[in-house]
């Protein structure tokens, strides 16, 4: 995905909100994710205490980045690796490109990396005539389809099995109506030859330990292991927020990431990479490079309220839990990071004026905060963005008047009862004569895609009083 065009979010979201087929696909996958996540957390002893611990590990690490990053660099270099620093996406791409061209690399195999999507590495490589092949099955599917991924964990969540079968029939000559097993086998066949032929493997980094300089790559398919084992050069892309202090901090993180992401106790594979092949090892890359990327993260870091967004493990649980994400999908957000956490970090990474609609793409129901393994208070951060966006725009006198009136009414029970009574009457009329709603422009806009609620015939406060009179003990 090239330069993100998050600015026409409303149009994309509106289109996706009317796409019933998309909703079905998103619901099938996300609800199953949530279900499996809930089961595996229920079976984990002291799950809540473990979440507190994982959050504390990240809180310590993020506050200590100024010492942990140089320490990681020193250890990783001592282990024989090379560390590169990139201020922004262009710089990161230039670094990878330089390593590739210098070694005469023509083909790059890629493990899953959200940073790679963020910096649009594939486009940069293609411009230099270097072929980059995604090897995670979901990433491979969306690459074949010419689309960006639409979910952090399940890139092709917006495609059904039939969609993928059609795509493989068109692009790979596979039979139509293939099963998931047959499609997976086809990808295995095609990509095996790529792994063997590639001169460079690119992966992301889920965690790094400053203590030992180990990079942790978490995956299920084995494509990550291929990419960091078979090609002569391994390049790992990492945001500055991935480092933790100690090796022993990795265990609590590895305990929670797969459980939140896919409902697994642990993924099939976790690689702890500390550098290039040692002389007594029979395979593994001769060169290992680590690209450490800022690209706006230090803006989040400098913001004491938003800082906790850097605790994110990219598990994707908040996407699955979000009722808005499940209706509009990842593409609507127009950015590599979608869903609730995308709506929090995009304004910082891209500039709030470019994506000012994203913090409003939430019902603030709190489901994201409830599932977040490191308890990031996403609704609070979204509200904070809204407050900042609102504060930057002068309020009209009409709006100010409305707020003042509401404040007076809400603070006085008699006024409140009169006002709600009037509302009830008005809604009853509008319900009978729907055409009336069109007369009130704000109401008409609100009604697009919504049903007018019907008021209860007797308001709550009256029923409450009657109940108390009927049973004076208040029960």
């Amino acid at each position, binding site marked *: 995905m090239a330069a993100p065009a998050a600015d026409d979010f409303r149009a994309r979201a509106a289109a996706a909100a009317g796409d019933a087929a998309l909703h079905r*696909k998103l619901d*099938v*996958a996300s609800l199953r994710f949530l279900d499996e996540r809930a089961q595996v957390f229920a079976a984990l002893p002291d799950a809540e*205490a*473990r979440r*507190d*611990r994982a959050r*504390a*590990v990240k809180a*310590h690490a993020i*506050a200590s980045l*100024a010492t942990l990053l*140089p320490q990681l660099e020193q250890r990783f270099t001592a282990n024989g690796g090379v560390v590169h*620093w990139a201020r922004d996406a262009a710089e990161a791409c230039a670094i990878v490109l330089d390593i590739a061209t210098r070694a005469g690399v023509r083909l790059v195999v890629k493990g899953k990396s959200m940073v790679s999507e963020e910096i649009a590495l594939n486009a940069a490589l293609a411009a230099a005539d270097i072929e980059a092949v995604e*090897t995670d*099955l*979901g990433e491979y*599917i969306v690459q074949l389809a010419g689309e960006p991924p639409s979910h952090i964990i*399940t890139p*092709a969540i917006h495609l059904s*099995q039939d969609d993928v079968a059609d795509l493989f029939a068109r692009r790979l000559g596979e039979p139509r109506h293939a099963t*998931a097993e047959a499609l*997976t*086998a086809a990808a295995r066949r095609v*990509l*095996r030859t790529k792994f*063997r032929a590639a001169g460079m493997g690119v992966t992301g980094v889920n965690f790094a330990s400053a203590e030992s300089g180990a990079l942790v790559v978490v995956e*299920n*398919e*084995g*494509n990550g*292991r291929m990419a*960091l084992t078979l090609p002569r050069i391994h390049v790992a892309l990492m945001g500055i927020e991935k480092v933790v202090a*100690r*090796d*022993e*901090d*990795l*265990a*609590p993180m*590895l305990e929670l990431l797969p459980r939140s992401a*896919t409902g*697994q*106790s*642990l*993924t*099939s*594979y976790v690689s*702890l990479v*500390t*550098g290039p092949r*040692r002389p*007594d*090892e*029979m*395979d593994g890359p001769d060169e290992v490079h680590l690209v*450490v990327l*800022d690209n706006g993260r*230090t*803006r989040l870091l400098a913001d004491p309220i938003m800082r906790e967004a850097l605790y994110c493990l990219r598990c994707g649980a908040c996407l699955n839990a979000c009722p808005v994400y499940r209706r509009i999908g990842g593409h609507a957000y127009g950015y590599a990071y979608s869903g609730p956490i995308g709506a929090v970090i995009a304004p910082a990474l891209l500039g709030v004026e470019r994506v000012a609609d994203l913090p409003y793409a939430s019902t603030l129901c709190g489901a994201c905060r409830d599932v977040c393994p490191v308890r990031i208070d996403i609704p609070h951060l979204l509200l904070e963005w809204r407050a900042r966006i609102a504060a930057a725009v002068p309020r009209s006198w009409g709006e100010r008047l409305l707020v003042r009136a509401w404040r007076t009414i809400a603070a006085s029970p008699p006024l409140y009862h009169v006002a709600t009574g009037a509302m009830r009457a008005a809604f009853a009329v509008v319900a009978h004569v729907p055409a009336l709603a069109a007369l009130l422009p704000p109401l008409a806009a609100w009604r697009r895609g919504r049903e007018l609620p019907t008021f209860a015939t007797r308001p709550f406060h009256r029923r409450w009083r009657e109940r108390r009179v009927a049973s004076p003990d208040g029960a």
Partner: protein
Amino acid sequence: MARKTVLDAVRDALADAVVPPLPRLARASAAPDRHVLAARFAREAGTVGTIVHEVEGLGAAISAVAAVLAATATSPRVVAWPTPLARTVATAAVAATPGASLHIVDDAATAPGRDPADDLAAVRAATTDVIAAADVGITEAEYLVADSGTLVLRAAGRARGVSLLPPVHVAVVACDRLVADLGAALAHLRATGARDSCITLVTGPSRTADIEKKLVVGVHGPCTLHVVLLAPPEA
């Protein structure tokens, strides 16, 4: 230049930040008894599709591996690590399996058809070719993590490809390598001062759920994972 800019920005951003204390991490109290760990490992490994063979004595381990070989292909091509247990078991199991052939990946120099004038890269590519063409890879786990049913594999003196490229992976391990949790395995590794370029944690065969969240086993890595858990014969 970029390094300084990024690190300066990090330092400035955190100028007023208070560093909260590192959490105390939970540590398993006394290591549970071997049988408890073995049972837990077998249960956890089983839930992710690992086939666990609990055997007593080397002879039983060899028979278990020979049975896997015979069931895999008519003349299975086998590659194995040169570590003592893997070498012993692989050699005997292949000898007991009609038509089976064995390549112990112990040194680049042993790659078949190697001309001494070849450069190292070519030798290594040839070794990887042999591994990639094999039906079964036999390795030896450094630790087994009971809580998650995980194998901990080292790289020193070994080829990582043996546990990755063949469609069937068999790991042999003595049951005194069982530990309770991942934290314990990582602590043990650190204590040994291992300098491997890569430590690999393996929990089940390779898998994906990228198409409609349907579980498919066997993507890029092995489709089948066997663990032969070797207890000393009861006296």
